[in-house]
């Protein structure tokens, strides 16, 4: 685990302009280590707030992910995850409230059903199952958020780039 010393949490960096420039600056370094593209789906009430806690508490973690906030993890249907893979994501993390804590009472139970379906399809496609992960992170668990992100980033990095990444895309 090598947490990079970035001060801001990645979700706070303005989109597009800065992220586009970054690889050009970092190119001499980026050539020897490959960084994965990870998509994190987080529910509004727990996981996203957990990421926020990690941010305001200045807990360091790896920044190679883009976060997409949804109201409830139950909303994260297979289409979301599969489209992320289709567009070139190397890993997808689905996160929501712990059981019993769901803001919508049983939304995370639906999330499990949707996740199982997604996993079945990902398995059929021949993509490594380790590229897909489901985690429960509460609003107070900033430390846990950082830990999950670091673990997952390392896990995906070890697998290398997704073989389903469209060919026109590089880096």
């Amino acid at each position, binding site marked *: 685990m090598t947490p990079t010393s970035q001060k801001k949490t990645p979700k706070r960096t303005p989109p597009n302009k800065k992220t586009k420039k970054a690889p050009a600056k970092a190119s001499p370094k980026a050539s020897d280590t490959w960084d994965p593209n990870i998509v994190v789906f987080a529910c509004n009430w727990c996981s996203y707030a957990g990421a926020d806690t990690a941010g305001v508490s200045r807990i360091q973690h790896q920044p190679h992910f883009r976060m997409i906030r949804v109201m409830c993890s139950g909303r994260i*249907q*297979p*289409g*979301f995850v*599969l*489209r992320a*893979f*289709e567009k070139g994501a190397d890993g997808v993390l689905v996160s929501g409230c712990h059981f019993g804590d769901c803001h919508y009472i049983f939304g995370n139970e639906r999330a499990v*059903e949707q996740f*199982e*379906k*997604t996993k*079945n*399809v990902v*398995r*059929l*496609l*021949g*993509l490594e199952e380790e590229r897909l992960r489901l985690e429960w992170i509460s609003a107070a668990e900033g430390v846990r958020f950082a830990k999950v992100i670091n673990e997952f980033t390392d896990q995906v990095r070890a697998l290398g780039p997704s*073989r*389903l*990444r*469209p*060919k026109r895309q590089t880096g």
Partner: protein
Amino acid sequence: MPELAEAALKTNAWACYDCGKCTATCPIPRIGGDYSPRKHVLAANLGHGDDLVKNGSLFSCLTCGMCDRRCPAQVGYTALVQKLRELSYREGVEPECPHGGALHSVMRMMATGGTQQDRLRWLSDDLNTDPKAGQVFYWTGCTMYYDAFFPDFEIRTLEGTRAAVRLLNQLGVEPVVSPDERCCGHDLLWNGDRKSFELLARHNIKLVTDSGAKLLVVSCAECLRTWNIDYEPFFESPPPRIMHITEYLSERMPELKLKENDGQKVTFQDPCRLGRHLGIYDPPRHVMKELPGVELVEMRRSGPGAMCCAGATWSNCDRFAKRIQVERLREARETGAEVLVTACPKCQVHFRCAMKDPKIGEEILIEMRDVAELVSDALA
């Protein structure tokens, strides 16, 4: 838009004399929807393409081909829709998929390729197949994906696939069932994504050509249409003979040893791809009539006039589609049949989904099976 005039010319749309039979016969307006094939044909003829291509209404078409059959001027509306959707897709218009585009993503990932799919896990030990080369290639279609994706509908489309292989084995054929098969691209083509479709077409044609197969047996009606019609321009060498499983069984029915049955009443849903698109009506009926104890009763609308399962390309499921399905299932129940037999896995998916309706589910509940399953069960 110059493509519009070309599409109108190629699909005979210019011959339209504005009689409106297409709209009158279309299942969507008949069930109460606001959809008019005639308007689309006229717009294409007049060159009013911008609105037509961008407003997304083209994606409401079920592509069932009912209008093509009834049109007195032989306008190919379904073919026109296929072409216009390509223009729509280019403009960034995408259909609203009830499954969040999941299945389209799967197909596009198959088009990109790069991974080894795990698609043959369903092959049980009693089935003899060859992964590489042989005289007969059995095209499985994507039933394993449907079963994985729709666990809540309790569908078993893979049973039909297994039954087809079992029957081929019974007839002394060890078919090629390849782990490298990819989606035929049917749904991508019908949603306008020609680029991905072409990638899939080239891959699949190479796969079948390299296997050395002289005969390609297909279970899924949509795959069959794609192989027969849409793949035609991509063949570099003479294509193998392409047959639906029911056509093949129909030819070799006397060779199968069948057991006596207590009697079962069944009815048949003509898949639109098999029927109106390819004109295959008799082989499935012939096969079922040969089965001892099986009585085939026809629904009010059958054969060329059969109603569609209202969801051909995972893109147009709305309240009208549901109504069409419910009405069709009521027709099936009216016949008094115990089993609704189809020859396309998607018909099963869509009707099973309609049966999930908590209010009227009981009224329209009926067992659904593939033709191959029915035959396989009758084996001695």
